[in-house]
């Protein structure tokens, strides 16, 4: 397993590389558009290199040299699990459409993660969907539709 320190240094390195790539890419821009991203991209890349050098050689590590923990706290969930729930939510949207996906996600999340009862979960989900429809009509918003909701709508004519 990587240590916290190693991951921190890797993060700095990735940021530095991205900034360097942006500075490099900026050279292709028109004259006046080039200076700002080129200059700051380059300064950022150099700064990232300095920070990595400092962390590796000169100073004490910026974060404790402990293994990266993905374990959840007592009663909680690991960050990866939380991101997996986000992925499920956004994954449901193209299938069910935003309002329905929110309802399904809310029920599933409350049942599995919060340990709520069915009635509370369903009332909560209905309120969430109500909020979406209310705000949608107030602000004249069109929510992303899913193929299931599109199929239902086309059947209804």
């Amino acid at each position, binding site marked *: 397993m990587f240590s916290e320190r190693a991951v921190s240094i890797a993060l700095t390195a990735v940021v530095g590389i991205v900034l360097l790539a942006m500075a490099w890419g900026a050279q292709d821009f028109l004259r006046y*558009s080039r200076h700002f991203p080129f200059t700051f991209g380059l300064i950022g890349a150099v*700064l990232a290199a300095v920070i990595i050098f400092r962390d590796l050689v000169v100073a004490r590590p910026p974060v404790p040299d402990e293994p990266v923990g993905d374990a959840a706290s007592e009663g909680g969930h690991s*960050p990866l699990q939380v991101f997996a729930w986000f992925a499920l*939510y956004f994954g449901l949207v193209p299938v069910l459409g935003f309002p329905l996906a929110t309802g399904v996600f809310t029920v599933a999340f*409350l049942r599995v993660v919060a340990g709520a009862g069915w009635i509370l979960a369903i009332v909560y989900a209905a309120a969430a969907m109500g909020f979406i429809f209310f705000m949608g009509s107030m602000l004249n918003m069109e929510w992303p539709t899913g193929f299931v909701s599109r199929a239902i709508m086309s059947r209804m004519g």
Partner: protein
Amino acid sequence: MLDALMQAFAGILTFGTLLPLLLGVVVGIVIGVLPGLGGVVGFSLLLPFVFNLEPSAAIAMLIGLAAVVPTSDTFPSVLMGIPGSSGSQATIMDGYPLARKGQGARALGAAFTASLMGGLIGALVLTAAIPIARPLILMFGSPELLMLAILGLTMVGILSAGNALRGVLAGIVGLMIGTIGAAPSDPEYRFTFDILYLYDGVPLIVVALGLFAIPEIVDLLASGRAIAPEKGGANMGQLMRGIREGFAHWRLVLRCSGIGVIIGAIPGLGGSVVDWISYSQAKATIPNNHFGEGDIRGVIAPESSNNAKEGGALLPTLLFGIPGSGSMAVLLGGMTLLGIQPGPSMVTTDLPITLTAIWSLAIANILGVVICIALAGVIARLCFVPFPMLAPAILLVVVFGAYQATRSWGDWVALVLLGILGWLMKRYGWSRPAILVGFVLAPITEQYFFISMSRYGLEWMLRPGVVIVGVLILALLVSGFLLSRKEKKGVA
């Protein structure tokens, strides 16, 4: 002038004006509580109603909304660590840590008191400045605006004290994210990779929600606890304590309100930086502070300035017809619909309308704060609910707020990517405010640098306004450095 002021006051106290004002205040409070919905959305909601109103009543309604958004946006900033609007980003820095200590009601009490005083000071300055504002505002050309943007950028160093190198790097990351999209000086789209969503750049609200809201949701779900694991005392008692602290720090309120009015009055700088500038100068000048760990002064400073800024922003809007922000642009549109032509006539023939706007600003601030304080005790209880129960609602509000930006899938993709970046940065001790400050100031800095160089060459550096702001920047940096050195010595 005094007679006209009294006449306008009498006019606003009629049912036909007070009711629209109250409606504006209520809509403004709701808009402020929901992240992503700023004044622009609020004005757009109210504009259809202004047609049937008298001009003074319509102005009262619109100003009522604008006045209270910076007050109610404190709720999500303090209680959930989610910026309610672009003007309440810095409130998170100390408001949220206070909420996590179970002192959310205290933070809200102090914030609302500071908002009230800031809003009233804004209205007062607006009244006093109307006759003399014109030459003052015209003093600010592109070089002065550039220096103010640089003043904002130097705050990055102050915000990331303790890990200055990483803070500056974070600021540069923000600047580079800010360069995505159309360039200000050439017909060029930068770093867009032919993705249509990126042509207008990444929206500020998506960046703010991604960097601040998503990491908090992830960490709170990972902990499995409530936002505030332990109660910090009775909500009512804390609320009163916060209110007392707001009044006790009146000097800080006065100073930050002054900053708010000045920044608000300068068209082109935008209200998104005013809270950061106030927060950073407070951090750099108050000795023995614990900013970032739940210092009540870290709530008071940005909250007083973001309300005061509205008074300042009305100056160029009314006197020149130049909107200082997006919401002021919509207000200007509303005034045009009503047949009111902003400009010099606002201090002559249309003076009653201007004075109605000022009174509306003052009264709306009072009404808004009273309503928010009445709600604060109840809403602060949310901090003690186990977070997994709150998470779907908060996630929905965040997702909804992000989608408001451009109403496309790109908002959600950017939200998740920035959320992952924000979570990593939070975990490894990077300054997320520094990214946000860099992001907000990138287009302004580049644009005014380009204009200053094209118009004045290097001589722009010799303009009196530039020199004054330059000295101010140096003074802030030196005082911040001396303070941190003194504190380090004290610790040693």
